[in-house]
């Protein structure tokens, strides 16, 4: 055996463990999903047959999908900008010379440490009609009780508030790390030039934090499209699909309605959306962001 060939065999042997895991759990399912989305759902009586674009046509005509998609977009708009703004404000706040700031930082970060299911259970207690924290406070103030999660008008907003509460602390850590790498010279130079705090933030700090903002923005958006756990605890997508989000709908389609082919189609749609968002953000924002 030539030494050249032997080193090739070595290389493949070394790559094999990772390759097996990646192919078995990532590439094969991904390709499988795309393939499945092009076939009908097979049962014992009616075997699966090639459907072409039929499943995708069904997505376009599906009123539940439209509602779920609208919910997901609303959810992204309602959670991402507030979470990022809040994260930045908290980071600026605890970056300064604040007494007991280690404690404040910890407090802000705590929601991130908690599992989403636990968070959902805590907030379930807040939102419960009659005995929940919100209603109890309402009682004290003489306001009538409200079924926060049972009302189609408020349910999605309730989940948004909870998500912002959970995510903001996590994003704060990134902003805090970025703020601490900013050279203090720059701020001093700006101060000497007569810039006030707001001007320094607007013209120096914020632009220099843009790479962090981009990173956080992409993560927040992807997270908001992937959110599913609290729905199991809080609303199961109800009432009347008012809180149903894309991933939860896929789960329902696949494992409650056992329509694997349609679930695969929805998955492909979701992945395409996510890839589209990520690419757009990188392409559009990258040009306007200074990287050191």
């Amino acid at each position: 055996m030539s030494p050249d060939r032997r080193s090739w065999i070595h290389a493949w042997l070394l790559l094999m463990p990772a390759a097996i895991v990646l192919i078995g759990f990532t590439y094969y399912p991904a390709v499988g999903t795309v393939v499945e989305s092009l076939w009908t759902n097979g049962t014992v009586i009616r075997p699966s047959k090639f459907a072409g674009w039929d499943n995708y046509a069904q997505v376009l005509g599906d009123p539940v999908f439209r509602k779920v998609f609208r919910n997901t977009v609303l959810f992204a708009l309602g959670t991402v900008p507030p979470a990022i703004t809040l994260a930045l404000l908290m980071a600026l706040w605890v970056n300064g010379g604040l007494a007991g700031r280690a404690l404040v930082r910890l407090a802000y970060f705590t929601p991130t440490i908690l599992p989403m299911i636990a968070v959902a259970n805590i907030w379930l207690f807040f939102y419960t009609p009659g005995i929940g924290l919100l209603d109890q406070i309402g009682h004290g103030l003489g306001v009538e009780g409200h079924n926060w999660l049972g009302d189609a008008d408020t349910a999605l907003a309730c989940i948004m508030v909870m998500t912002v509460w959970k995510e903001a602390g996590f994003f704060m850590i990134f902003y805090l790390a970025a703020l601490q790498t900013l050279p203090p010279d720059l701020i001093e130079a700006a101060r000497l030039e007569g810039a006030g705090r707001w001007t320094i933030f607007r013209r120096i700090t914020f632009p220099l934090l843009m790479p962090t903002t981009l990173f956080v923005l992409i993560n927040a958006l992807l997270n908001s499209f992937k959110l599913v756990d609290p729905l199991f605890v809080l609303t199961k997508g109800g009432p009347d699909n008012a809180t149903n989000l894309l991933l939860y709908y896929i789960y329902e389609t696949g494992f409650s309605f056992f329509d694997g082919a349609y679930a695969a189609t929805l998955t492909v749609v979701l992945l395409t959306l996510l890839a589209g968002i990520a690419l757009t953000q990188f392409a559009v924002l990258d040009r306007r962001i200074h990287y050191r």
Partner: protein
Amino acid sequence: MSHLEIRGLSKQWGGITAVKEVSLIAERGSFTVLLGPSGCGKSTLLRMVAGLEEPSAGHILIDGRDVAHVDPAKRGISMVFQSYALFPHLTVAENITFGLRVRKVPKAERNRRLVQVAELVDLSAYLDRRPAQLSGGQRQRVALARAVIAEHAVCLMDEPLSNLDAKLRHAMRMELRALQRRLGMTVLYVTHDQTEAMSMADQVALMNGGTVVQSGPPEVLYKDPATTFAARFLGAPPMNILPLRPVMGGMALAADPLDRPLMRATLPDGCALGLRPEDLILAPNAPQAPGLPVSVISEDYHGADTVLGLRITSTGSADPHDPKGEILVRLPGRVSAERQGIQRLSWRDDAARLFGPDGKKRDPSPRIPPPQGPAQEPE
């Protein structure tokens, strides 16, 4: 342009005193250098003048107005940082005009001044670039331009050349000095590099341990150091500080094993003689030649000159591995002194300085002539 005066300025951090009652006057249009080793308080002093540190006590007067507790932006100063502190996301033009924009100077006026200043520091071709696309020297110029365009009374500079390589530093030194002269800026400049201080300053304030040890024109500090610290800090190689001790008939060098008196006067213990390496004269040994017999123990060739390390010897067999009591002498050109032979050491008239036991120059200083006539021969 403006007159800067510092009166009794102090800064304490907890129990540590970084700057201790420093007083200093920088005349209108003068170039004043704060020189000293790291940790001597020179940067803290500059930052207090800038308004980036709050002084614990004392006054800072710019044209007679006390600005010690005034907002930095309202002091009428500009500053060049060691790191340049350029805004990486702004272009060169935006960096230079940043302050003008903040102060809402009209656009036409801004552009007029930008063109003028860019011309001055030779940056006209680079106005659209980002700092990351510039060389070290060009970044330095941007920082300078940003300080100059404000047309402020006083310009502070915190080791602005320390990030440049040696060749560029030399060129920038010349440029900076020329610019300062042309614009008549009052400059307060911090450095630990004595060459920068010597070549640019009208006035050097030498600092150590939070206080100004000596201030004056560089040539005065060099010729007439007030303390042994000043004597050793300025000059490369530094001034030789040779301890004296009382012997029969006067004072002799402590390093001289034969106790040959150099002067008749009796001085307290701990006094020392200061001699610049370039003021020393080395002559070949001859039976009746004047001067102290020395042997060469080291040789350091620099191109234009050679620095020899000498020891006073009694027998000519000095231990070449013992650098203690080494006397440095600077001689022009390449000197290949015979390492084994004995040489005769003397010095120029008026070259010797005398320091007391407290390290301060003794005043009035007795004149110490070079060793005259036939010195005592080693037996």
